[in-house]
Structures are given as structure tokens and as C-alpha cells.
């Protein structure tokens, strides 16, 4: 009896556009230069917003590839969201992510926390779940931070990755083997309530907690695997040297097999990192290739994937699009490390309103007039042009700037705050803040909608859509966002 393969049908990634070169950091602290660039979340980005961006990328590509644009999302049986840096300590973020991604109300939502290998654990669990519950959306996102001036600071970053896991002959990357090893300790950790990660004894962490565990798991994962078919290993490492040495110890050629297109451009993105590395590696590989993916944190989680058809992930484009930060002070300010900066304003906030308006506010569902076809990004019960009856209409996440301004007197972490009037592809208009601004907007600019933190009132983050300059056209991403 042959069972259907279980694996990944689509990938999505998200990397904050703001980047800080480690050279800038080294000069600021008077330390020896270290290579690489780190992805730094903007003041309105967190693990949920990055996770949503990655998840939407995966769902869009999945539906586009399978041609089930209308029913794809409706079939998703579970969503697993892994993060060690959630914006809520109590309260599901997976539920909000499911709402924003327009998943059905019956979807099982699971929040996985604490573990730096949670992303890959989620992938392994999804493979177990998919044959019984249907397609599973796996999302891993982290925004890691270390103390300013610490050894860990140049190594940690932010990012997210997502994939759709299902069973069936249509999967792009079949999950062919797993291995793992538990550990009571992790090479780095963060105390509850603290912002900054810390390192254990550096050499002990590298050699025992990391090195010995990785060696053991690699041995199991690659036993009997044809070296010619092994196209690469996406191996999370506490520093670049440790990963290279682990491959050499396994008898592999690091120059040929070590697949890290990500870390030098983002830093370690925590529980998102193995999936992010895997997505970036996978989109470059062809049918038949084998890809080993290892999460190494508190123990090791590993999977061996086999390519059944090439699957784009949009990773190269997300990694390339950057807004370099010129100063460490700016980066620290964005991270909320500069004391005395104005906090978010107090304001009116209502859970009742969040709930009642979740259609237009979170699901991005507007209304369309059955009589005159006018589309409204709000949810009027009657057409505001002809008075006709309206029905729900999902709105596109891509559009064109119709008009814009920048508010110079509104307090914001990055003044002046842009506001853009966006006419959405396929109908509807939104007026929303501009995210990730790249200088002055122009009438006619292409933008894409991204979920961001709008404010934090009474300690609760308020999430809403903003518009940001569109990613370049082409495969996947926003051009085909719906």
C-alpha cells in the first residue's frame, strides 16, 4: 500500500525592510567589525505582523499554484503559529492571524511558544495533522533583540516564514525523514518579561549544546542518503563558524552543501530561521533535490525534504528589498530603547468595535452593490451611491496611490507620518497610513497592504492595515495578492 506524500505545497517569507549593517554597530560601540546585516523591525512591526505577511504570501502562492483561489483558504484545517516573541502573553495570536488571513471560523488555531526550534516543530506537527484535518498553515515569526553593545547584538534579527503543509501528490516538497533531540538547556534564552536574549557559556554552548546535538541529529537524518542528491543543508547556527564546522564534521563540503542565503542579511531570526533558510534554499532548487533543514536551539529538530516540483517563495526579493538604517541611535529609538520618547497616545479603544468591524478592519472584506457594482472598503449595509443592497466583497491587497500627504504635526516614531489614499485593484478605496516609507510618495505609486501595529492603547496592541511601497513585480508576492 502506498501512502500519499505529506509535505509543503507553498512557501512565504517576511523580512523587515529596515536593515542595520553590523559595521555601523561596530563603529558605534568601538568594537571589532563583524560581518553581515541585521533585519530590524520597524516601530509598527512585530512577530504577528511579520507572521501575517509570510502567511499571506504562502496562501496566495498556494492558491495561485493549485488554481483554487476561492476554495483554498476555506479548506485549511489548522494554523500553527510559533513565536518566542509574542505581543500577547495570554491571548491567541494564531486566532487573529487566522482572521486576517480569512481562514474559516472552524480552523484549529495553535500557538506554540518558548522554543527557538518551534517553527520546525510546527512543521513536523503539521505533517502529522494534515492527513486528518486537511491543509495546515505553519507560521514561524520572531523579532529577537539583544542588549545594546552585547556580543549577541550583531547576531540576532527579525523575520518570518510560513508554509502550507498538506498530503497528496501535489505537494512541492515531500517530507521524507525526521530526526530530533531534546535538551534541557539552550545556548541562548530570555527571561520572562525581559526584552533581551542572553548567551550561556559561549564555548560550552557551541560545543556541547549545539555541536554535539547537531552532530547526532545529522547522523540520523542523512544516514544512507545519496550525497549527490543532497542539494543542501539549511542549518541554524549560533554563529556562522559553528554551522560550517558542523558540516565539516559530518563529512560534507560546506562550500557545496551549506545553504545559508539568509543569515548574513537578517541575523538569526529565532524560531523562524530554519524555515526562512529552507524557503530561500528551496526556491533555488529543482525537482529531485534533497534539502535537510535543522533547527538548533533547545535541542535539535530536523527534517529531510525532497523536491517534487520547484516552488517559489519570494525570499530573494524580500531579502533584497531594504531600507538601510544609518545610525545605531535611530535603530535603538525604533526598538523603544531611547528613554523619554513620546509613547503612543492614549485614545479610544473598544473590543466591541474590534469585533463588530472585524470584516473591514481585519479580514479586509468590503461590500459591493449588487445593482451598480460600486465597491466600498467599509461595510455599508446599503450602497452609498444608489441605495441598493450590498454583499460582502473581499478586497485586494494591492493598489495605486490616488492621493497622499504627510502629517508633520502628528507624533509618530518616524515623522512625518504618511497617509495615502489607495484605490485597490478590483475596486474599493482605503485611506491608511504609509508603512516603510521610501521618501515622498507619488500619485500613481503601486502599494501593497500590510498588517501593522497602529498603536498601543492601554497596553494592547491595535493591528490594522497600512500601505507600503510595493515589492517589485514578478513571481508570487503582492502583484498577485488578492
Amino acid at each position, binding site marked *: 500500500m502506498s501512502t500519499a506524500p505529506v509535505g509543503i505545497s507553498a512557501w512565504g517569507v517576511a523580512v523587515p525592510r529596515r536593515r542595520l549593517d553590523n559595521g555601523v554597530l561596530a563603529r558605534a560601540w568601538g568594537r571589532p567589525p563583524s560581518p553581515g546585516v541585521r533585519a530590524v523591525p520597524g516601530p509598527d512591526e512585530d512577530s504577528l505582523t511579520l507572521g501575517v505577511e509570510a502567511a499571506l504570501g504562502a496562501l496566495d502562492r498556494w492558491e495561485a499554484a493549485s488554481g483554487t483561489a476561492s476554495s483554498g483558504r476555506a479548506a485549511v484545517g489548522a494554523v500553527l503559529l510559533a513565536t518566542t516573541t509574542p505581543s500577547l502573553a495570554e491571548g491567541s495570536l494564531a486566532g487573529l492571524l487566522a482572521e486576517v488571513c480569512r481562514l474559516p471560523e472552524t480552523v484549529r488555531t495553535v500557538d506554540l511558544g518558548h522554543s527557538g526550534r518551534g517553527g520546525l516543530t510546527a512543521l513536523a506537527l503539521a505533517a502529522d495533522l494534515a492527513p486528518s484535518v486537511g491543509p495546515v498553515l505553519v507560521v514561524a515569526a520572531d523579532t529577537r533583540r539583544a542588549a545594546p553593545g552585547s556580543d549577541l547584538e550583531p547576531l540576532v534579527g527579525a523575520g518570518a516564514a510560513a508554509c502550507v503543509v498538506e498530503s497528496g501528490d501535489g505537494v512541492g516538497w515531500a517530507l521524507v525523514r525526521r530526526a530530533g533531540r531534546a535538551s534541557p538547556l539552550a545556548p541562548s534564552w530570555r527571561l520572562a518579561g525581559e526584552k533581551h536574549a542572553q548567551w550561556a557559556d559561549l564555548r560550552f554552548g557551541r560545543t556541547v549544546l549545539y555541536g554535539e546535538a547537531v552532530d547526532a541529529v545529522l547522523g540520523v537524518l542523512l544516514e544512507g542518503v545519496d550525497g549527490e542528491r543532497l542539494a543542501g543543508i539549511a542549518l541554524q547556527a549560533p554563529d556562522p563558524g559553528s554551522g560550517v564546522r558542523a558540516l565539516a564534521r559530518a563529512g560534507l563540503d560546506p562550500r557545496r552543501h551549506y545553504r545559508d542565503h539568509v543569515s548574513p542579511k537578517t541575523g538569526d531570526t529565532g524560531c523562524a530561521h530554519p524555515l526562512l533558510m529552507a524557503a530561500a534554499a528551496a526556491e533555488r532548487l529543482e525537482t529531485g533535490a534533497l534539502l535537510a533543514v535543522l533547527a538548533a536551539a533547545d535541542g535539535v529538530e530536523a527534517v529531510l525534504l525532497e523536491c517534487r516540483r520547484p516552488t517559489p517563495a519570494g525570499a530573494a526579493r524580500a531579502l533584497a528589498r531594504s531600507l538601510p538604517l544609518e545610525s545605531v541611535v535611530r535603530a535603538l529609538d525604533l526598538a523603544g530603547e531611547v528613554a523619554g520618547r513620546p509613547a503612543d497616545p492614549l*485614545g479610544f479603544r473598544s473590543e466591541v468595535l474590534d469585533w463588530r468591524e472585524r470584516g473591514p478592519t481585519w479580514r479586509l472584506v468590503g461590500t459591493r452593490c449588487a445593482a451598480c457594482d*460600486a465597491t*466600498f472598503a467599509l461595510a455599508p449595509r446599503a450602497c452609498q451611491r444608489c441605495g441598493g443592497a450590498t454583499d460582502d466583497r473581499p478586497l485586494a491587497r494591492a493598489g495605486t496611490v490616488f492621493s497622499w500627504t504627510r502629517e*508633520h504635526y502628528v507624533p509618530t516614531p518616524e515623522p512625518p507620518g504618511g*497617509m495615502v489614499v489607495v484605490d485597490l485593484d478590483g475596486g474599493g*478605496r482605503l*485611506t491608511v497610513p504609509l508603512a516603510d516609507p521610501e521618501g515622498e510618495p507619488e*500619485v500613481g505609486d503601486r502599494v501593497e497592504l500590510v498588517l501593522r501595529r497602529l498603536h498601543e492603547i492601554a497596553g494592547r496592541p491595535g493591528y490594522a492595515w497600512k500601505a507600503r511601497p510595493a515589492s517589485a513585480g514578478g513571481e508570487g508576492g503582492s502583484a498577485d495578492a488578492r
Partner: protein
Amino acid sequence: MPADRVSVVGVGCTRFGERFDAGYSDLVAEAVGEALADAGLDRRRVDAAWLGTAFPDAGVWKGRSGMDLAEATGIFGIPITRVSNYCATGAEAVRGAAHALLAGACDVALAVGVEKLRDRPPQESIVGMMLHDGHPVRQKGFTAAGTFAVYARRHFHERGMTRRDLAQVSVKNHRLAVDNPLAHFRKPLSLEEVMAAPLVADPIGLLDACPTTDGAAAVVLVRAEDAGRYSAPVDVAGIGLSVSSGWDLPFFDPGHAFLGFQATRDAAARAYSQAGIVDPRQDLDLAEVHDCFSIVELITYEDLGLCAEGEAASLLWSGATDRGGDVVVNGSGGLLSCGHPVGATAVRMVHEVTTQLRGRAGRRQVEGARRGLAHNIGGPGAIASVLVLEARG
């Protein structure tokens, strides 16, 4: 004399400005006292009143109800109605009074507009309310300047308008305000100064925007048939008010082009029809229009029919709306110079037009003025009022 008209028989207006010396009640008392004295009436003769205040929450909850007029003036025992319709609030007070007179519900009516904004720093008054209150998500981060800035941006894009055109409105109005003793600002500005001012909301600069101002104005109205008993009455020949859009609609419905304000067009059509105005540029001698931001005066030229669509900037530069031109627009200095105590503004405009039609405007006097109008835009251009006033005889 048409039977369905009312007349202004008394006007009063405080000095506009940062009135740190005067609270809400002080401003009300000053404007009402002056209007009653101008009409030669004792306060006990008033038998109904309307109080327009748009933002009571900017201060100490004064202006939430008609009682704040009673308490300030000692006018008790009559109906007093508080009205609010964003920046057309003052016009709403005048309209309420006029219609009650015409319905025979009263014989002497008082319409008052007042706003006390500067008990707080400017950033915490209307701007602060827009940032902190209102919908927690929708349009969050958008201020009044921003909502009109997106109109300016479309005029730049579609009509080739520039920041220089915006600035020239401010230059004109600040120059005219030098002769208005009630104005908040009475200092002429150069084009360079206006254009060099910091941006508030691109492309609107600080000197393209009206300041945060305190003030009050009051008018006494009677039926036109009773006005002969008073000295120098001025007739209200047309009253138009229209709500033609909403708070969110322009920004969430692609049908809105941001080139004009339908509300002004609707309100003007109604007022012009009542007043028998066919060619506004010929038939009007002066207009006080709602230049809360310089772009709005330009847009209003077109909406009021003073020029064809797309010709606002050339009308401005031709001098036709300046002193000595066909229709003097904002001879008082407008909101840009007088300031904009929201509820007071339309009533201040009626005060100004009445003063002009009585021939008592001193150095600002428009020679031979017979007809003038007062125009307001409320909310993000959703509401507009147009009041046409006419000299007698």
C-alpha cells in the same frame, strides 16, 4: 419685499485670537451684548436663541447645550437650542433662527457662534481630538490639514496647481486682514515667507492653514417685515445648507475625485435660487469663504461658480477676488487671518458681510456693496452652508 425673508438687525463679534483673557462665557457675553446693543434691544426682548459650538470637549464642556448661552448672558426662560454641524455650525445657528422666525415660532431670534479652543495647547485641541478620539482604526493619524492636503495633491496632479498658487491665497488674505481690527493676525506676509513656512501636511504649509483661535459672534434676526423698525437692517436673501458626503466616504469610495466639494455646489444652488443669483461673479460684490486652508478657497471659487472648473488659480492671480476686484473674497482676511473658532466662524462672516452691506467697513469697505455671501465647509468637505445677504433699498 418677499414674505419669506428674515433680516439681520444687530451684529456683534469679539476680537478673534488667543483670548487667554476670556473664557467661553466671557466671549458669549461680549458678542451677545454687542449684538443686542447694535439692535437697540434689551435682552428680555429675545424670545428664542440658537447656540453654535462645534467642539465643547476642547474646553471645559461649555457649549454642549443651550444653557451655556443662558448662563453667560442672563437670558433665561426662553428656548435655547445648541446646534453643531462641524465648521458649518455657526450657519446652522443662523438657519435655525431664520426658520423659526419664518414659522412664526418667535419674533426676535438670537444666533450665536462661539468656540473656546485655547484653554489647551493647539496640538491638544482639534488635532488632539482627531488623534485620540474618533474611530480607533479608520483614518487614524489623519488631521484636518491632511484631509484637505489630499485635495490639494489632486489639484497639483490634475490641474497643474502649485504651492505658489496656495501661498498667494494666504498672501492676499493676510494683506486684507491688516485693516480688520477683529482679526487674529494683522501682519502682511510675502509669498516667500508663506512658501518657506514648515509643512503641516504636504503640500499644506503652516501659513496655508488657519490658526487655533478663540472667539464669538452673535446676530439678532427678525422677520423682514418687522425690520423697518431697526436701524440699517440687512436682508438674508438665501440660505443653503447641504450634507453631500460623509466623514469616511470620500476616503473609502473611489467615486470621489478630490477636485471639488459637492456640498458647496448643492448649498449654493439652493441659496442662489432663493436670492435670484444667476451669474455669481456679476451678482455678488463680496464673499466670505471658508479658507481653513488656502486650497479650500481656490476650490471654492469653482464650486461657487466664480470661475469655470480648472480656472481657480488664474482667477486668483487676475486680482478678481482681491480688493477692487469683481468679487472681493475674504476681505476680512478670511479664516487664514481671522482664525477659526469653529462655531463662531459663520456668524463672524455674517457680521462682516452685514457690516459691508451697511457701508460701515472702514478701510476694508467694498465700494457700493449690495450683495455678499458667507460660505462654510464642514467635516472633510462633506457639509456646506451658503448664506446670501442683501442690502435694502
